[in-house]
């Protein structure tokens, strides 16, 4: 890695057309970025395996996974009105590259991607992606203590 990851500078979370976005004041991020969850997490928990944190991912996937940065915990005034109780935080491994506490939405750890891109809803039948933009219809993530909830 060229430099250590920095805490994303997200000023607040907004909802637009049922999806979560972060508003940033950072030239690296652009002004509004989708907020993602690691979509495969639930299936991984269900299988009993969980998902390791990024530093324990295979080498060939590290560039990819490190491009998704954990959203830091925000204060309630930075959260969308009416949805504040759905947000919480969770600690991350101290020895990892992104050790800051991470925001969660209904138990799902949240991420932003460190490049800009298009933002539209995926259509039905489309390929499911590893990271998916968070939708406000998202159900709670049931998470047993025994599983790692990376990345």
């Amino acid at each position, binding site marked *: 890695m060229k430099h250590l990851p920095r805490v994303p500078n997200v000023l607040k979370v907004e909802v637009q057309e049922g999806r979560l976005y972060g508003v940033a004041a950072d030239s690296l991020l652009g002004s509004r970025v989708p907020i993602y969850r690691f979509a*495969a997490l639930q299936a*991984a928990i269900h299988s009993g395996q969980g998902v390791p944190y990024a530093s324990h991912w*295979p080498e*060939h996937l590290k560039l990819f996974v490190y491009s998704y940065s954990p959203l830091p915990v925000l204060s309630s005034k930075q959260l969308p009105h009416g949805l504040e109780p759905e947000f919480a935080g969770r600690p991350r491994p101290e020895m990892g590259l992104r050790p800051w506490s991470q925001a969660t939405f209904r138990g799902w750890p949240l991420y932003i991607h460190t490049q800009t891109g*298009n933002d*539209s809803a*995926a259509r039905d039948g489309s*390929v499911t992606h590893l990271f998916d*933009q968070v939708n406000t219809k998202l159900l709670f993530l049931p998470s047993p203590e025994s599983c790692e909830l990376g990345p």
Partner: protein
Amino acid sequence: MTHDTHKYRDFLSIVLHEERLYGISLEQGELYPLYVYGPLQDTLDAGHPPPLLHEWPEYAKDFVAQYVPLPVILTNLGTLISEQLPNFPLVDDFLKQIPEVLLPRSIRNDISSQNRQGGTYSWEQTTFRLWPLYYVGPGMFVDENSDHPAMFRPATLSLTWLAQPDSQNGLERQNDGGYTFPPPGLGP
């Protein structure tokens, strides 16, 4: 998620439209947009090329399994001919040259194949400028307006040839001390 995808579709040829590559399915004559694994060059440069699908971690496998390696076109030409033209003389050498002839001339020299023996998808996979090609479906498609960066990307004419990195990390060493490039079984 389960996939009944240890088989592949047969493809007739590869065509171009507005600089993008598509496979034509033999059965239905449908167009399948073709994709490459975007991070591939970066992972080669870093000395950690991706393994074939079966060696991917469980939590990422289902996603990748949606992208099916494009088989060599007209892989089953011999079988097809013997089914449809029972008296047609089948000559192996002749059959092997047909697919190359049917590729569009503009990309013929860009097309090769790689071996995937031992993998979940174990057939010979078409490559374009050394990038392994994939298709999605049937019944699924890639929503190209949605924001999912960094993974599979459309195969287009602007793709530069997969380049051998300066360092030899992660490349397959040959008996004479040299390295093969590209390494066999480039994933996913």
